[in-house]
């Protein structure tokens, strides 16, 4: 069971100490509303990752991490419901594995808190060159989303489906917004993050949670907290069906079908929804894998993914462009079977077994991910609680959950006729 404590207003520390791992991991998730600050927030998190007062440039900080036996400093931006979550994390070796006496864990915890609370700021500036570099890298990162057509199509389906909702926005903000960010915006974003973000500090493995708590508590002493209220709009049913298409010179088309899942909040009917999604298209025993891939040989992959933080479900598959109708019709026909109880009872048992396994985390990163994704939930649920909820799900529950799905948006990334090289 994890230990949970509140350090200050909406700053929660969740820890699962264990000595079975070689490492200790600390992650700090900071949830903010998806508002006009998104671009500045994104740049901020990457600027913070570059340096701090004690190691004022990128090379020095990287050198310090290497000296700490290759400690891994991570920074990221993600969407969690209609919230932009900024994350900074550090993973490093447990002290006992050092080749000479060292307190890697404590140094790493201090370094992480320095990066957040004591950045390399001089008179409100993070450095013009640093900002210019991070702008270039972030814009490049956004433009490169195009390189992975599978992820591109997936995100594009979401942005088409949720174009009138905050969830349809790009997690980083737009390229135009990023270009327009000024230094003063970054400084304001930093101050805003410290006072208004909903924080969760998650500590797993060899890291000493008490020490982490006191390092962070001390830093929050001088900060006036006014935590943001973060709400996510759940649209339970599709209002009308839309299809979007983009053509690219590629070999394989990507079909993504977006469904509204009939949920009214992120834990609404969560156990049945999880099992339903698994049977629909997660496991190798799932309807989509067994039929679209194995039986009909139409695709190498065809999966469904449930995004509980927004109450939507997406089906994705890499197919020949001219097979779109055939595949989408088959997906809907499999859904119809699922709704009508045409599922082997053995499959329900397989799904429960597999979900039990999927909630048995074998790495500190897995445990960290499970808890940190709950930054916006008032109550933490453990993997064990999730599993026991799943155990209770019946085939009727699965059918009912499937009946709540309504197809909303299809996004098709089509292959243009000519995909020849022109050198």
């Amino acid at each position: 069971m994890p230990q949970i404590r509140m350090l200050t207003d909406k700053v929660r520390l969740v820890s699962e100490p264990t000595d079975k791992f070689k490492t200790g991991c600390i992650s700090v998730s900071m949830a903010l509303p998806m508002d006009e600050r998104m671009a500045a927030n994104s740049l901020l998190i990457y600027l913070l990752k570059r340096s701090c007062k004690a190691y004022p440039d990128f090379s020095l900080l990287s050198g310090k991490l290497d000296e700490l036996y290759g400690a891994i400093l991570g920074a990221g931006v993600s969407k969690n419901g209609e919230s932009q979550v900024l994350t900074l994390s550090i993973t490093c070796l447990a002290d006992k594995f050092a080749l000479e006496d060292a307190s890697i864990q404590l140094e790493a915890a201090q370094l992480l808190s320095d990066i957040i609370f004591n950045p390399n700021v001089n008179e409100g500036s993070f450095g013009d060159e640093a900002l210019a570099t991070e702008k270039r890298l972030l814009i490049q990162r956004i433009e490169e989303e195009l390189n992975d057509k599978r992820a591109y199509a997936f995100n594009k389906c979401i942005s088409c489906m949720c174009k009138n909702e905050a969830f349809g926005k790009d997690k980083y903000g737009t390229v135009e917004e990023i270009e327009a960010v000024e230094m003063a915006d970054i400084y304001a974003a930093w101050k805003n993050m410290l006072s208004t973000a909903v924080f969760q500090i998650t500590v797993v493995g060899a890291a000493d949670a008490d020490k982490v708590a006191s390092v962070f508590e001390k830093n929050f002493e001088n900060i006036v907290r006014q935590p943001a209220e973060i709400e996510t709009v759940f649209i339970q049913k599709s209002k009308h069906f839309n299809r979007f298409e983009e053509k690219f010179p590629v070999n394989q088309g990507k079909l993504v079908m977006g469904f509204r899942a009939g949920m009214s909040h992120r834990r609404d009917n969560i156990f049945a929804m999880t099992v339903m999604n698994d049977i629909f298209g997660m496991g190798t025993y799932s309807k989509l894998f067994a039929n679209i891939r194995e039986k009909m040989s139409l695709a190498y992959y065809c999966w469904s993914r449930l995004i509980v933080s927004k109450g939507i479900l997406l089906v994705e598959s890499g197919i020949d462009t001219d097979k779109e109708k055939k595949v989408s019709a088959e997906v809907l026909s499999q859904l119809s079977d699922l709704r009508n109880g045409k599922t082997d009872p053995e499959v329900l048992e397989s799904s429960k077994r597999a979900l039990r396994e999927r909630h048995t985390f074998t790495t500190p990163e897995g445990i960290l991910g499970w808890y940190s994704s709950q930054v916006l939930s008032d109550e933490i649920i453990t993997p064990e609680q999730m599993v026991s909820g799943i155990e209770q799900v019946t085939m009727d529950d699965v059918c009912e959950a499937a009946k709540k799905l309504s197809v909303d948006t299809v996004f098709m990334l089509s292959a243009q006729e000519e995909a020849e090289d022109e050198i």
Partner: protein
Amino acid sequence: MKFKKYTDNKLGETVYCGKHPSGLEIRILPKEGYTSTYAVFGVKYGSIDTAVKNASGEFETIPEGTAHFLEHKLFESEDLNAFERFAKTGASANAYTSFEKTAYLFKGSENVGESLEILLDFVQNPYFTQQTVEKEQGIIGQEIRMYQDLPDWQVMFNMLKVLYSHHPVKIDIAGTQESIAQIDADLLYRLYENFYNPSNMVLCVVGGIDSEKVAEIVDKNIKRTEGAMCERKFQKENPVPVQNYIEEKLSVAQKQFMLGFKEDISEPLLSLEDEIASQIMLEAITGKASPLFKKLLDEELIDMGFGSELFNGYGFSCVMLGGTSKDPEKAAAIIKEEFARLNAEGISTEAFERAKRKFYGRMVMSYNDIDDTANMLMNLYFNGYEPFAEIEACKNVTLEKAQERLAKIKDEYSALSVIGPIS
């Protein structure tokens, strides 16, 4: 069967190694506190095996992509397929084919003994018909198309194509649409007979299981006893690449590049010490803390994804560096200059020690993960090493050795591969 124990006290791990009478090598690492177990059953048969030794001792050419094709097909049987069987134990099963091996694996925490029996059983029971082979040609065809659209994949294979004149490392792991069309059930049976004999295989199990239990299950489930480790043909390559430059246009946002330096090798395999010395040398010269990284970043020639590695196996070895760049040729020139400078002036002790410490830390960290650990045990075995040899080799690497490895990197043996956007 008898096991030999290998213990690394500092690391706190013990591996049990044994040779089953059938010829099968077994390596087990029981992990205290872990409920899950990961098992991998590997065959020394990968995409570079494009020739098979026949009865008269001559090497006979076979189509490209057979190892990967067999990997897909072994999941099938006359009755329940392997996925359906694993669904009953809850374990998640998978397989992969790389340049030098094919690996079948599962991970699970319940019914581990039963899952292990299924793993051993399905890999030992081939079942192919013309019909199932044809079905798989459709699925693998889609898999090949998917990879053709992935720039990271293409940039590497294009580089291998120009770096190597005849070594099969240059061919795609899955083969081509044309080569897989030549595969039929008879050929698969023949290749299966040749490669899938216990002496050419290894079983590595890591996690919540003990060695006696594994031995008992192996005793009951290994059928074949004849056979020997398959030989590979070593043909020395001319170190000079076929071409020095290759460019392909794909639907990408920015140029991507990979710079490769082929090594002039006279023996088919590098020693583990050479391998690790190269990795540490590359980290010291090109890592995030290095002056080279800073220069490239400041000149806007790379992004944070820039990285380098030694890529080696039977009959091939090269150093690869790559990332996204607006000017790959300029980036390549700066990298070459830095190699030349450090070849003349020497790598600093400080940079070397920092890189070595990072490398050691990351190696220890990898023991967190039962998946990584089992795969590493397998690789060590196939390359003729005992457990923990990699950690010992890392500790023993000297600056002189790293410098020696740097001297092997030569401009005249290099090639640049670029993926550019379709304008």
